């Protein structure tokens, strides 16, 4: 049995300890907002917060995530980074960042983690921090603007 604390709730899971956190969340906890894009930590679609930091859940064995607070896109607004996360989600909607939307859970989780540690990032900091998150619709220009907008809203 592995115990996972996800979005403030505890789940007892009888699964392979080597199963990536991504698949435990998606198929055993039932939270599908976190996406599979590459499985090797190259695209960022699976980004969640583990102990407050952005991680690629496809590359974290579920056993390594036990006993830590995990936040997914579903719990972002009500979680420990709720104020920042809500501002990011709002800025994303104000600027209509999304296109296909498949990568955006990961983008929003990554951007929230960035703003939580750097409340006013410049473009270079945004580029450095967001480059691990691929968007094939290439919404990058709007992601940059939305991060600035969220930063301003958070003052």
């Amino acid at each position, binding site marked *: 049995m592995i115990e996972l604390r996800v979005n403030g709730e505890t789940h007892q899971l009888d699964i392979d300890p080597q199963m990536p956190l991504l*698949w435990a969340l998606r198929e055993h906890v039932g939270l599908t907002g976190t996406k599979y894009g*590459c499985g090797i930590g190259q695209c960022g679609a699976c980004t969640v917060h583990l102990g407050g930091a952005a991680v690629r859940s496809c590359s974290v064995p579920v056993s390594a995530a036990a006993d830590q607070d995990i936040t997914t896109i579903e719990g972002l607004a009500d979680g420990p980074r709720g104020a920042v996360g809500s501002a990011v989600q709002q800025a994303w909607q104000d600027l209509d960042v999304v*296109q296909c939307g498949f990568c955006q*859970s990961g983008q929003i989780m990554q951007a929230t983690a960035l703003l939580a540690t750097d409340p006013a990032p410049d473009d270079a900091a945004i580029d450095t921090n967001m480059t691990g998150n*691929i968007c094939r619709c290439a919404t*990058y*220009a709007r992601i*940059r603007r939305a991060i600035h907008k969220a930063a301003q809203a958070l003052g």
Partner: protein
Amino acid sequence: MSNPKIVNLSRRRFLKSSTGAAAGLTLGVWLPARGQMAGPERVAGPGMAGGGAAAAGDFAPNAFVRIATDDNVTVVCKHLEMGQGTFTGLPTLVAEELDARWAQIQPEGAPVDAERYNNLFWGSVQGTGGSTAIANAFEQMRKAGAAARAMLVGAAAARWQVPAAEITVVDGVVSHPKSGNSATFGELAVAAAEQPVPDEPKLKAPSEFKLIGKAFLPRKDSKAKCTGVAQFTQDVRLPNMLTACVAHPPRFGAKVRGFDASAAEAVPGVVEAVAIPSGVAVLAYDFWSAQQGRNALTVDWDESDAFKQGSKEILADYRRRAKEPGKTVTRVGDAEAALAAAATVVEAEYSVPFLAHAAMETMDCVITPDADGGVRVVNGEQFQTIDQQAVAEVLGLEPEQVRIEMLYAGGSFGRRANPQSDYLVEAAHIFKAAGGKTSVKLIWTREDDTRAGFYRPLYLHKVRAGLDADGKPVAWQHRIVGQSIITGTAFEPALVVDGIDQTSVEGAKELPYAIPNRHLDLHSPELPVPVQWWRAVGSTHTAFAVECMMDELAAAAGTDPVDFRVALMGEHPRERDVLKLAAQQGGWYDPPLAEGRGRGIAVHKSFGSHVGMVAEVTLDDDNGFSVDRVVIAVDCGTVVNPDVVVAQMEGGMGFGLSAALMSEITLVDGAVQQSNFHDYLVLRMDKMPEVEVHIVPSNEAPTGVGEPATPVIAPAVANALAAATGKRYHQLPLERAA
């Protein structure tokens, strides 16, 4: 449409058909779609999948609009939302004519039913592609909204005993100012359903538009996609569903000779391994187990008929073929003689590699049995009519027994409109091999998605062009070599004309430049590498060759590249005007850039839309470069959602920039060398330039915006690099060339 020539060059002529004949509103009282609702409840979340039935008391005047007594207006969208904004654009058209409140409108995907939901540019085929969604449905969806409005007004007039002409509709409220009566749509819904359906509802004049082309209307899918609740195929979970992973052949054309599944079936969670035509599928209770099981499979591949050439050999073969004449596509004047007499001849060879679509959501599909023996197919469905037939054939069903639910697609870029329905057929084979009683979800890994096809073909272009003594172009001889994406598919009768695949030559067949002597010919070698349209199709390679050569010619003539083009564009004012607008806005006439920097320009028309682009590059110390700024001018006729147009220009350019800079699929001994995003390189945030978009105001018919920005960026960047370095760039991706 305004220019029938475009029809010939785009994907609009799918299957020979009565294009445009069915342009009217499909009227009739809403019924659950025939063959669609016979089975269990639909599986997907609210507002995301098709086939919803009207509840008692709902007003559903036609196949596209449903008004509930709670005042919610559902707009049934016949086109897939894969990011391009259809679930915002199509409802905008209805909301405009209905005078609804934007907030009360909810989109819903249409069920499979080509009688009602066909693409009006594709005859009897239901599907999405070719940047046609807004263009084909522009009047149809407005009529749907106008008919519903007229019926609401009729119901109000009867209820209040006042003339219909005195009734107004504003923001979802029906009012009679003289009497002070007013009612919401919901309050009138039941009575409106009893009103006669108007045959030809009156549409607004463009001057009366309140939403079309005007407002920023928030995307309807934005919130769901920002909060993780938007449902994609990957997210579908059904009772007792099995997940499948497939071992695909290591080379195209290889077959399974045999396999040992003992290790795979020993993996906890794995149920069984089954042979299917495209490989061996492992079925398990979850994805992780299925993937572990697949990795544990031992497959004996028969590669005796497998394709074993590499990209280098293919390119060398194409170069040999390019020495011989191909099938003539266009012959105007006498290019050969004009070249012989030309004062200057410029000659260049351009090549582009195979490309994967690499949508963020890998190919996936759910098939679930219905109680009546039919099945339900759930996926980011782009090609309903084709896919329905293909799945029915595998399962031995009638097409109408295959119900399809259309979920959001996590990108497609053409991939989910596969003429062979490849991944749906694969899912059907797995479903069948597993007994046909259990729900099956096929998920391709990123490695499958990268290695199993289908690709934008590798292409070679050779262009020889001549200038007279005044530096004016007098001859253009152009030879194209590359696989047909159409031959052998159901689209061959429509799109291969006199042996010429029109998609291979679109963008090169018609030039916006007046050149008196032109000859274009084509070789279409057949290879077993699976190929398919890729966002912007033929233009992805023709625009590169044509616009780079125009730049080389301008340089040879000693003329400014904009002036050189404009002088030849008298008969193509819309291309000319976007070129000039891009130049003006893109700083073309500013002081020259510092050394080590360069500005390049390109213009191209595709899918009826005209796009001009200026790119600025800066060279770095390591033989590399960056693209710093891109300015885009677009003329796509009437604009429905200006911000969606801007977004498609930004994103379409960014998608093309991946191909321009770094993406390539290469074969060695027939094996695909790339497998995932660490070696199939795509644009990331750090290389996204600043983008600026300028829209040309227009009252012309609306044309598409999903694709037309994509092909223009590669020549703009190549020309900018040439300006910065003095060298010419003939191969994509440019980072390899640089």
